[in-house]
């Protein structure tokens, strides 16, 4: 803008503009950029070889393995749930529909620690089923099943809350046409619905996966922190950090930070490329 040109009625004074951008930049630098930079700089404080050695450590590799297993169980289950719930809610009218939609979002308003606590109250040693499980030598908490359940709880709404508004916007006509032409329910879903919702589904799965791999509070309650056995990557970060093994802690943390960055890049790409097919962007 040249100084000679008069300022538009809805344009801010250049000083206001500079001040606002500066304040925003400082706020973002302090709270978002620096934490990210510090993760990588601390991981590499002892050089690349130290960071790589910390990741190749037995306990760290076991933690990576457990995190991948947990996500591989929890994310598909939540995706199947999300598709089922969205199909029932958007393709049919029944009483209690809006209550069901509200209940699906419920886990997002529950503290992660409480999300873990509820499973302790059922399966823990002093929980409802605790003594029975001990007598039958079945391990739920402090083992894989508990970690998976706590992860499912905290990531519960991701796929459903993306698909419900999307499929609701798309209506039922295409599916009704397919069924009236003789297609089975399954092939209607696979050939008509799935192509329409695939980007929205991917978007929901992406966010679900990021949270599933990174969940800390809920998993921390039910894991029991057994090294090499029930520690996921975020828990391994905590253990190493509390042991003052900062390079190791930040090396594992930098893997999780990379996951977050890849997630953000894919998310931004999906929002930009397939804006019309993703409800989260569509919503007003």
């Amino acid at each position, binding site marked *: 803008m040249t100084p000679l040109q008069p300022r538009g009625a809805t344009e801010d004074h250049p000083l206001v503009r500079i001040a606002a951008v500066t304040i925003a930049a400082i*706020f973002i630098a302090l709270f978002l950029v620096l934490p990210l930079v510090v993760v990588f700089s601390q991981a590499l404080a002892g050089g690349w070889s130290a960071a790589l050695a910390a990741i190749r450590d037995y306990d760290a590799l076991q933690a990576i393995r457990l995190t991948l297993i947990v996500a591989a169980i929890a994310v598909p289950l939540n995706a199947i749930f999300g598709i089922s719930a969205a199909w029932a809610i958007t393709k049919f009218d029944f009483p209690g529909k809006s209550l069901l939609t509200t209940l699906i979002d419920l886990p997002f308003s529950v503290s992660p620690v409480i999300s873990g606590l509820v499973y302790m109250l059922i399966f823990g040693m002093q929980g409802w089923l605790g003594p029975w499980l001990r007598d039958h030598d079945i391990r739920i908490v402090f083992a894989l099943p508990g970690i998976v359940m706590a992860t499912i709880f905290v990531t519960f709404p991701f796929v459903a809350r993306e698909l419900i508004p999307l499929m609701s916007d798309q209506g039922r006509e295409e599916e009704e046409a397919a069924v009236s032409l003789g297609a089975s329910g399954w092939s209607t879903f696979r050939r008509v619905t799935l192509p329409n919702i695939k980007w929205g589904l991917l978007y929901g799965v992406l966010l679900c996966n990021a949270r599933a791999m990174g969940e800390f509070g809920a998993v921390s309650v039910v894991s029991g922190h057994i090294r090499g056995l029930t520690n996921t990557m975020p828990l391994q970060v905590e253990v190493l950090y509390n042991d003052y093994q900062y390079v190791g802690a930040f090396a594992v943390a930098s893997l999780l930070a990379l996951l977050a960055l890849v997630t*953000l890049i894919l998310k931004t790409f999906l929002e930009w490329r397939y804006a019309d097919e993703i409800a989260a962007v569509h919503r007003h």
Partner: protein
Amino acid sequence: MTAASLTARASWRSPSALPGFGLTLGFALFYLSALVLIPLTALALRPWSLGIAGFVAAVTAPRVLAALELSFGAAAIAAMLNIVFGPIVAWALVRYRFPLKRLVDALVDLPFALPTAVAGIALATLYAQTGWIGAPLAALGLKVAFTPLGVVVALTFIGLPFVVRTLEPVLAGLGREAEEASATLGATRFQTLRRVVLPALAPALVTGGSLAFARAVGEYGSVIFIAGNLPMKSEIAPLLVIIKLEQYDYGGAAAIGLVMLAVSFSILLALNGLQYFVFAKR
């Protein structure tokens, strides 16, 4: 299938040509009940195993009250900080053009995507007395990490995207006509911002602020590393839940959890009511 069962089904849901209703709704209800509703019922029932007096004693112990006060107080301060700075960030992102804008916009979601434990150790390292931000602040006599101030820093980080992301679509959809009209009628730019733009943003500010607050009250991972976790001083309520669990005091842990949930839901309901009665009537 008999005709009787067909009419029975038709009576509680509207007829549809599409198949799969029983299967999908059945699975959804089973999954929701088994993994969310029954466990939450356990939380609602368990504290009463202490008896009413025991429940009251458990949640009014000084250490518990201090932890609840810190969690709710720090969450409220952090939400206020985001209500002040969030609009400036959203305004800059929606209205101005500047270098790296796309990148900055994507970065706003970082607190959603970055695992909380990673954010926690990063913030603790930054704001410790030897850290990049902590050292200059310590020179000014301000200690952030391992004090309640550290809790506020972590909760501000967690809450930022809620406020910015709620405001952005509203700001983008605002249009300039109202501002132009205001300017034409002789208002200064500041008057326009205060009397035209701010009221239009107010509902979104309340929504974003309450989302940030609700998330912050229960936040654990990003806080515990920077908080210092001193009982009565910098110990948050979720940490106390974990401590009680480790002492096999399930009733006490459930009691704190239930109070946290009840208070957050009441505050959210009250803010929703505020939205409904104050803003809807305009």
